[in-house]
């Protein structure tokens, strides 16, 4: 009857609000503030946070940096893609391009690395499986984040940002050794 009629009172904004609504608004507001505070809390005390460090770059510059690292630390090759074993604590560089993640890493468990990610062409999605960590990889931008693999094993890097007809071919790999 009245949700589509003008309010019964001309000065409707001065009408009292029922207790039920007030209680619900109060509870909801408290919950909203808790959810809000969780984010700065986790940013300071939590161990999993999105990258805060990024630079503008170019495909040529980033590609050269990746190649430099590959030449320095390549240990073998797998399906035509170099496998790189950089020293613990170092900066490691991975690029996405149509339709490949390059190179493959061999990392050590419980060691930290500074992972640099960028794209040579279109946007890609770095989706580390099976732990399901997902990052956006954008051409022209270099994202840097500290990673500390805490479980040994073989990990897949699925591209989860649609990048054309060969999107499903774009799978990379990271090995974590003991």
């Amino acid at each position, binding site marked *: 009857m009245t949700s589509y009629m*003008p309010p019964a009172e001309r000065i409707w904004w001065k009408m009292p609000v*029922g207790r039920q609504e007030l209680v619900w608004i109060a509870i909801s507001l408290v919950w909203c503030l808790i959810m809000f505070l969780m984010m700065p809390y986790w940013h300071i005390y939590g161990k999993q946070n*999105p990258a805060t460090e990024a630079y503008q770059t170019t495909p040529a510059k980033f590609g050269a940096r990746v190649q430099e690292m590959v030449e320095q630390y390549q240990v073998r090759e797998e399906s035509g893609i170099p496998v790189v074993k950089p020293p613990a604590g170092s900066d490691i560089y991975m690029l996405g391009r149509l339709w490949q993640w390059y190179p493959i890493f061999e990392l050590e468990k419980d060691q930290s690395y500074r992972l640099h990610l960028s794209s040579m062409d279109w946007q890609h999605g770095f989706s580390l499986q099976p732990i399901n960590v997902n990052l956006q990889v954008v051409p022209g931008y270099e994202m840097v984040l500290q990673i500390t693999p805490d479980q040994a094993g073989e990990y897949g890097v699925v591209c989860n940002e649609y990048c054309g007809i060969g999107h499903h071919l774009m799978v990379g790999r990271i090995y974590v050794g003991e």
Partner: protein
Amino acid sequence: MAEFRTCPDSGFYFHKSAESLMKVNAVLGVVFLLVAGVLAVGVVLTRWQEVHLLSAEAFYMGLTAHGINALIFWIIFFEMAILHFASSTLLRCRLATPAWAWIGFILMVIGAVMNNVAVFQGNSSVMMTSYAPMQAAPHFYLGLILFAVGALLQVFVFFGTLVVAHQEKTYEGSVPLVTFGAITAAIIAVFTIASGAIILIPTFLWSIGYISHIDAEMYRIVWWGLGHSSQQVNVAAHVSVWYLLAGVLFGARPMSEKVSRMAFLLYILFLQLACAHHILVDPGVSTEWRIFNTSYAMYLAVLASMIHGLTVPGSIEVAQRKKGLTNGIFEWLRKAPWDNPVFSGMFISLLVFGFIGGITGVVMGTLQINLIIHNTIYVPAHFHATVAVGTTLAFMALTYLLIPVLFRREMIFPKLAKLQPYIFGGGMTILILFMLGAGTLGVSRRHWDMDFTGAALGFEYPGMAYTLMAIAAIGGLLAIVGGAIYLLVAVGSLMFGKKLEPSAGFLQSFLGKSLAASVYNTNRPETLPMAPKLSVEEHGSSGFEAPGTFALAMVLLVSFVVYYFINWKYLASVWPLG
């Protein structure tokens, strides 16, 4: 001279020009829903890995068109009809400048067709988001731009109609709550379309070679000012539809005009910040920016939705209790008209939007939790809960009301229509829940082959992921059947339904009212009076007027809290990173 008719079923006044515009906008919306629904078959049957129906090319083309037709064309055409209804019909006012609204409508049609042509020509399988530097054909962008300009014109006609109604004093007091909600949707729409213009015009110029470079990150940020805000237009619109249907079906009055309007105001102030939800794991944006924006400024827009979540069913409960359905805390709900698709559609829309869409949306929009959800199939699961059930099912429910009231036709296959919200809502809910599960296992969205056939390096998802995707697909097929029934009933009724001129209709039998014939005349409609006043004791009742709704709200809150912290716990188990 403006011509009006009164609907004998509902008492609504229809201005002839506005009525035609409502009809054409609603019908065009339904046409694009049909296109989206047909494409959904291909999408669902391809992502069901054991079936894997389409080739990669056809899948990506179909998915692009499915997204654009469902999320943009169907919904925005239908929203234009709602805007004209909420201004001209509800305020009993002539439509301002119908000619401009027609120009807007025609531009929208040209734009929508042009965009579809571009996609089906095959060189624009870029998904709805069309992320630069992936490039579509120029007429892909031009179609969207024309569509947006057309929509903007119709939105301005809506604002103009409000001005006319105010000046000609067609109503007393303030505008009704439903109109207020529509104003909210229209204001957000202006912001949305402006963002779209800011990004799509340069992108169009880039596609024809006038601009050499579009920054990929800038594209993402501004595009989502269009992409996410347009979904917030839908939220404001379908919440208004919930209030409208609660009013029509139950004579429900808002529990508090002030609270409901404040909640809409919070939408206007904060919803557009949601573009940040898509940028949480991107390079180059600061943590402060991400936290403030992804939380819609401390979750004030979420607060608004939680308020509507209480006040919409709460107003129904209060109305039902007044009719004597006071036993226990749920008699009002048990004895609601569950066999009336206007009600069942609206209520399922409300439940799925709140419980699944709302909770998953907040969880995945949490800065850090987004790390384990971004771009997985969890994301489309979320927005099928908000848009495919929340918005689309609410609009379907409204359609069942509009067939007799606006189109003056009797509904064909009423028994099938009664089942439709359950089939569509149920199928969608299955699709959504199992896609949420698959997303948690890391299955990617917008992906043709979860087997990675032909990839140099492989990866194998757990067997459970395949099972979840298969069940999701079955739910999807069920939802498609539900969608087909809707189209059959809606289109069939318009074409073959018995004309209701001037006798009784579907709604009349429900409301038990008998009103005058629906014929046009040039008399000015009576001024829309204010709602009848409440008696003193009904004001600001100190007790809980709607205990059942409060219980439901508490269930929602507990589910929300538990699910929220489960996701934090899951996040804490992955590699330390940052």
